């Protein structure tokens, strides 16, 4: 039992002290058993207070420390480190959350909040009395990173890690690398095309001996955790031998009788069952879409490189960290949403971008020349009623950039923008200015009266009450309507589910803290980058990919990782091996051992993850979890009442 506990109660500027009487809390706990020092502080986490704490611990020979401040998710580690600097084992530190769960949650009831804070600090003191010095478990970190998703973010992260002499497995689910960016034409700000960007990255990657690229590959199983993830990767066959002659393959493609919508062009064109994405895609080999192949054998007769005997492979890889770069899906409008799938000249922005790239001389849609284009913004974003309340960030700039491009490429184009307020933030503003100067018409709808698309006498009409002209009703006859669709999280979350990655309110993967830990997740060792964390443009994706690479690298660069020593312990006297705990353990960490005459349970500390699932199933109550023992929990309960 601790006899010299130091307690610090934080004002957090006013975040706590505006609602909780921190001095009253201090007075209420200073005479608790074992407390030898009780202080309030304006900012517990400030450098000066941390220095004071180190001095206090040394001068007063404190054997336990409690800080009552914000959530432990923010500063548990900060204060554990303070203890370490004062040569006090960091597991003698207990954190009390009196901000998120007291002052903020009960800002409507100052007396109640103060009362609750007193109990919470007392409970933390009760817990720290039983705290013991512990040594972290040390594990060897595999010096390799698995990157899931071979779009721009994944490829960029792969280069960054490879540059740091870290082996990388780049795992792409599709048969071609490049993700969404491969589908874009010329891009803001550099006017490179998506293809050029992907080519540049791919050519850089294939030269690297420490980068292994898998396409048509999916992670199907994960066991293990930070430092030592054991992944099973399923690799689908392409049904085409490695080296093939382009001439015959093209003939084989021509011969294939199966015609399917081409997803790469967002279904505005068709492809065969044996197909390319685009003429120089990566890897430079087509693939057979076996689900839709009729096995007619026509391609095999033409091309010697077709090989239907190829089998699916399962590979085992072992990595220290996993970097997620799974990207986004473009929003698919519902039938009838601004005429989508009901009025026949309505397309989405991604489809429009493919149309611009694939059209030559004249912009044609269903064989008719397009002159008047109406852009309807925020489709699938900022929904008042609907799932997606967020702004998708990239679409305003992307739509304006496309509208400039289409005007440059084709003659007699007139652009009409039906906006909800243009958000060309930062330097992107110049595009908006350029577009306005070129005579594009901008209108803005009221939030409760979005534009209406209708088909009247063979004409497609968009109607709006325009804020910018004082609410005038304006109608535009359009040859093509472009729905400026936003980004949504990937519909298929199987890989996210595999790693149990938490999602945010917007359903994108969630970071631990937007500012303190923006690329880390609650799953230790798994980082997130690019648009799987939230909508981003390419530059922002690259920045987040490089940040995630830095973080993943930091987990493995030292070769040894420390993990929490919170494991289950068996009371040898109380245990009379019944197998219940071993059955409950999801990690196979419990086995039986013989000690003298007796058979008892034994915990493998290297495997135990400290979940505690074995505790409640024990009929003799012989198992406790370190730092969560019954005496600790029950003494906390005693203090809370």
């Amino acid at each position, binding site marked *: 039992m601790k006899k010299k506990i130091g307690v610090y109660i934080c004002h957090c500027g006013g975040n706590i002290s505006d609602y909780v009487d921190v001095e009253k809390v201090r007075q209420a706990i200073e005479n608790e058993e074992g407390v030898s020092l009780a202080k309030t502080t304006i900012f517990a986490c400030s450098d000066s207070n941390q220095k004071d704490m180190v001095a206090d611990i040394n001068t007063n020979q404190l054997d336990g420390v409690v800080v009552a401040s914000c959530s432990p998710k923010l500063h548990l580690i900060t204060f554990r480190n303070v203890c370490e600097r004062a040569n006090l084992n960091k597991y003698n530190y207990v954190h009390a959350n009196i901000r998120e769960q007291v002052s903020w949650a009960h800002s409507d009831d100052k007396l109640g909040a103060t009362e609750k804070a007193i109990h919470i600090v007392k409970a933390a003191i009760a817990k720290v009395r039983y705290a013991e010095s512990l040594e972290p478990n040390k594990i060897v970190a595999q010096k390799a990173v698995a990157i899931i998703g071979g779009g721009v973010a994944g490829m960029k992260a792969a280069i960054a890690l490879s540059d740091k002499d870290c082996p990388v497995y780049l795992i792409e689910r599709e048969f071609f690398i490049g993700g969404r960016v491969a589908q874009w034409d010329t891009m803001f700000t550099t006017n490179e095309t998506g293809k050029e960007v992907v080519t540049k990255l791919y050519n850089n990657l294939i030269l690297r001996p420490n980068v292994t690229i898998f396409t048509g590959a999916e992670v199907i199983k994960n066991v293990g955790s930070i430092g030592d993830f054991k992944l099973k990767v399923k690799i689908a066959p392409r049904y085409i031998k490695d080296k093939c002659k382009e001439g015959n393959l093209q003939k084989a493609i021509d011969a294939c009788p199966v015609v399917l919508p081409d997803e790469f062009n967002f279904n505005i064109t068709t492809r065969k069952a044996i197909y390319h994405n685009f003429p120089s895609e990566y890897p430079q080999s087509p693939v057979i879409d076996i689900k839709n192949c009729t096995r007619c054998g026509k391609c095999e007769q033409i091309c010697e490189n077709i090989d239907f005997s190829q089998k699916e492979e399962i590979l085992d890889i072992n990595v220290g960290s996993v970097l997620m770069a799974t990207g986004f899906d473009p929003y698919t409008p519902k039938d009838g949403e601004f005429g989508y799938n009901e009025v026949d000249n309505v397309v989405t922005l991604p489809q429009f971008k493919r149309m611009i790239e694939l059209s030559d001389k004249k912009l044609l849609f269903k064989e008719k020349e397009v002159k008047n284009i109406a852009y309807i913004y925020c489709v699938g974003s900022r929904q008042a009623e609907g799932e997606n309340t967020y702004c998708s960030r990239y679409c305003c700039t992307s739509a304006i950039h496309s509208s400039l491009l289409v005007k440059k490429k084709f003659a007699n184009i007139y652009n009409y923008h039906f906006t909800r307020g243009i958000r060309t*933030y930062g330097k992107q503003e110049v595009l908006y200015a350029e577009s306005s100067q070129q005579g594009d018409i901008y209108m803005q709808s009221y939030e409760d009266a979005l534009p209406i698309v209708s088909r009247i006498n063979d004409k497609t009409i968009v109607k709006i009450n325009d*804020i910018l002209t004082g609410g005038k009703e304006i109608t535009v006859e359009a040859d093509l309507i472009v729905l400026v669709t936003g980004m949504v999280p990937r519909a298929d979350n199987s890989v996210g589910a595999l790693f149990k990655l938490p999602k945010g309110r917007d359903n994108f993967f969630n970071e631990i803290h937007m500012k303190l830990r923006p*690329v880390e997740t609650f799953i230790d060792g798994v980082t997130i980058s690019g648009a799987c964390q939230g909508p981003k443009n390419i*530059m922002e994706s690259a*920045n987040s990919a490089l940040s995630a690479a830095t973080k993943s690298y930091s987990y493995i660069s030292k070769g040894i990782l420390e993990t929490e020593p919170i494991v289950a312990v068996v009371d040898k006297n109380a245990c009379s091996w019944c197998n219940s705990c071993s059955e409950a353990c999801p990690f196979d960490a419990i086995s039986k051992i013989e000690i003298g005459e007796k058979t008892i349970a034994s915990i493998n500390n290297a495997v135990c993850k400290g979940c505690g699932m074995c505790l409640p199933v024990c009929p003799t109550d012989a198992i406790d979890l370190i730092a969560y023992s019954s005496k600790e929990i029950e003494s906390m309960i005693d203090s809370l009442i």
Partner: protein
Amino acid sequence: MISKQKITSFDALIIGGGIAGGEAALNIANTGYKVLLIEKDLSIGGKMILLSKVFPTLDCAACITTPKVSEISRHPNITLFTSCEVSKINKIDENNFEATIIKKPRYVVIEDCTACQLCEQACPVSVPDEYQFNLVGRKAAFIPFSIASPKAAAIDIENCILCGACEKVCPTNCIDFTQDTEEYQVHINTVILATGFKLFDPLLMPRYGYGLYKNVITSMQMERELAPTRPFNTILRPSDGKVPDKIAYVLCTGSRDASIGNPICSQICCMYSIKQSQLLMGALPMADVTIYYINIRSFGKGFEEFYQQAKGMGVNFVKGKIGKISEKENGNLILRYEDINENRVKEAEHDMVVLSVGVLPNQDATKLFKTDELKLDPYKFIHQVDSLLSPAKTSIDGVFVAGTASGPMDIPDSILFAGSASSEAISYLIQHK
């Protein structure tokens, strides 16, 4: 008199101790490299440490910055120089740079100062406090602000009358008027520029009356009024100390305006104004807050929801550009504006006006490089040579940029940018071993 001192070499030099530079320093130092972090101000933490709370989570800015600042100041791989400026950087050859650093005298021995504030109390000189954006005064012997790091006194020699009062009361004799400018030469292998941004000076827009009408303040001044370490402990309007109850925000002050030379959007003003409006609604429940805007740009994660939340709390959003502000005898202000919804010119009276000032480039870093050219973009931010794929690369190989030195951005983006710059710098160091 300049004393010359030759000191050792470092792996990385980071210029700017704000949130981007600090984050980059920690990232690089944590992988084992030696970092020299140079800050021209008396404290690290940049602009962020002076903010109240940050959007969209309403975390207090100090709670995010102080632990980072603390980690920086005690990190074994980081050497921190405050009150220092880099005067030039020469690239000798690939991955070899030589930098000259000028250390301005603080006239206080930091290691001996206990921040007891006795010198502050003794000093007879009062001048406007730049860390409180001139809302209040400070002494010529002063501690920059309560959560400054290092937390130590400094003497503002320009305003000091050399009376010696501070020296007499200092219990540790840490005040030293004999300190002089020092010059250091350092050798480094890579450089990160994290020199941040400058705020638009609203004196350049006389029609808004800043500097003329006392109750027209900048958003940074309001930020201080709202901060935990705030000067008045409440919200006051400067002319008469009255608690305001009808506050207006003028967005895009100094942004999206080619006539004052800044055509781009500052990317943060909409959100910080919405944040301040929410904090004001909390602090002054009876007050009206009106935000005059052109477009609201709540584009980041959780931002749109934050904007909707402000609307739900009762903040008024008026789409309209302010033409002119004039002052009434009682200190209230008349805003003449074009109401775009109603398509006519209107006037409104407010008792306090906050100008949401924009982000301008800090051009301090541009003239450092003598051997190579550091290119700038059309708006005088540091040019990104591969803005899509390697956003941190500059026109000089081995020199990287992080945060708002390359353009306007918010804190989450600055932190990601810093992560990106550190990744490039670490790769550069490993590849050039």
